[in-house]
């Protein structure tokens, strides 16, 4: 019995194999390779950690957003830190008529809104900039994402504590021509090496 045939057996779980779920293509081949399902996870949360907003995180998800909105799927933005600028979005190929911008006044309303959007099944992608949050909150959001089969993205600045239980955690670092993506956690695998993307 060779090692290869042993490794082929179904009752042996290999640490570098991914479950056969399909993700949303990110638009960056180098990143897709490293992600389970070759894309952003559906029905789960993705957390993106940044030193500060504006280093290229939106451009990272823009190809996927453009693709989803062109398929007439809705994209919700919950409490964005600035105004999502329509001319730039349109130039990236996003269909503006599928954008839903939610700007709650109270923080508690923010979590509630994220949950509703994730759960409703209407939104293919829910982008959130949550402030604070505890394990219970994240858990509820995760369940909501599963129930609605939505792709939830949480953008958080690194100094925010309390890591959330998510399916995919990325950390971004700015580079002169783009960003460096560190995959801190991914479902079905260990942390992988960084990917450099030019934006």
């Amino acid at each position, binding site marked *: 019995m060779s090692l290869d045939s042993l490794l082929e057996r179904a009752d042996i779980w290999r640490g570098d194999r991914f479950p056969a779920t399909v993700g949303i293509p990110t638009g960056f081949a180098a990143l897709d390779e490293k992600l389970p399902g070759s894309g952003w996870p559906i029905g789960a949360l993705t957390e993106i950690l940044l030193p500060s907003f*504006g280093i*290229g995180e*939106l451009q990272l998800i823009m190809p996927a957003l453009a693709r989803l909105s062109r398929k007439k*799927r809705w994209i919700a933005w919950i409490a964005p830190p600035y105004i999502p600028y329509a001319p*730039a979005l349109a130039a990236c190929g996003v269909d503006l008529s599928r954008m839903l911008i939610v700007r*709650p006044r109270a923080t508690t309303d923010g979590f509630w809104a994220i949950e509703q959007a994730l759960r409703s*099944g*209407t939104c293919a992608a829910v982008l959130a900039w949550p402030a604070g949050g505890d394990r219970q909150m994240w858990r509820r959001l995760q369940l909501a994402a599963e129930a609605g*089969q939505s792709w939830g993205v949480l953008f958080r600045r690194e100094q925010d504590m309390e890591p959330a239980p998510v399916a995919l955690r990325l950390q971004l670092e700015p*580079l002169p021509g783009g960003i460096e993506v560190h995959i801190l956690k991914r479902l079905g695998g260990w942390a992988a090496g960084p990917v450099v993307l030019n934006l």
Partner: protein
Amino acid sequence: MGDCRAAGIQLLAGTNMLWLCLYFRSLSLDVLARGDCSPVPRVVVFGPETRLQVLVPNAAALVRGIHAEMRLSAAQTLVDDLHVLTRDAAAEQAAVSSIAAWCGQFTSTVSLLSPDAVLLEIGASLRLFGGLPRLRQTIDAGITALGYHVQTGIAPTPLGAWWLARANIAEPATDNEQLRAALARVPLRCMALESDVMAVLQGVGLRTVGDCRRLPRDALARRCGVTFINMLDRALGDAPDPRPLFVPPPYFTSRLPLPAAVDDCAMLLFAIHRLVLELAGFLQAREAGVPGFVLQLCHQGRAPTTVAIGLVSASRDAAHLLRLVRTQMERTPLPDTVHEVALVARDIRPLVATATTLFDTAETRGGDHWTALVEQLRARLGDDAVTGLQLVADHRPERAWHYCAPGEDRPGVSNAARPLWLLVEPLLLRQRDHRPLLPGHHGALTLRRGPERIESGWWDGGDVMRDYFAARHDDGIRVWLFRERCPDATGQRRWFLHGIFG
């Protein structure tokens, strides 16, 4: 369907008619107490102030030994904390009308039978609603959900149905044979006779309708009058009994007085639920929906609190409407206790129920349900917190877009050189040697692209004259800045941060 505006359109009794009569035996009480389900002993009283009598006791009071026509004083000795309600005849009338409108969803032939009964001609509706037992059950359940106690009678004639209902004879009489048989057992008092006629009949020893029939006609006519004979004929199907059609009002309004003032949200919702069900029935009857309605919570001695419920698209789904009400009520502060709730819906729109698709894909799911999500969010966060985005043809960057209703589509020009984030207000930056500094970031800003000159907007007082630059900070953040073309009061040309390339 309720569209016969002309009063006095009569319906001839004919063959194959089947009448269902709803008789509200405790209407006076239900009208005042249905907003509350707590088991408090209650009575409705009538009469002069010095000699108040009990008109109707509720179940809890009955159990404690109170009955109709008992003196109030006597009743109060039996039950200390007896809740006393004064009869509201106007409310009773309004209630009967509301119910009649609600009944419109089952048949277009509804007629009022004053003061406390509603007649429905259901012969044509039987098949649509799955047969007589099921229809009866649906109606009964619906009426009960509205908060009324009802007795139902079914007969081929209106009067027959009514008498059966008053006699609380549940078995339906589907033809005249059965009717005769059933009426045999109906006591005289169910005929709601004039007192003198009643006296005559009782004096002759008659007890039931059946008894009356055994007497010779002319004798009866002589003693009780032609009207009486006529009535019997009509009830038994021997003479036609045309009934005026009930015409529902063009819009919906219904009041629900609360037996005890309330400030508890859950209890309020209980009452509002009843009103929403009424509204749903009213809309169903007209195949219509509402894009919104108004709840009025009335307080003692101050203006009522108005809660406006708005929808993205018209609906008559009671569950959906109630959900929205619940969400909105949760964030509506009540300044005082509420003693009455009213619901008004004036904008009634035709609404055809959409067929459910065979393949419920993600696309269609998104397509139909996004309005529900938007309504849900708006109910709690407010209308302007939930919007879409739209392009505007204007060279001034802050005006090249605006928030709009979600889903609105408008083609426009897009500009590749724009940042994904725009600041709500341009941020004034400090300068050193005429070079801008980014607050909160140490290090230098390097200008990359520019200047892009924008000078426009002189016609509405919002003239801008700016040179825009894309810049990169040592920290990695890429920003969109502008420098004003005109120096300010101090002679300097100011730098502003306007956007961030996300």
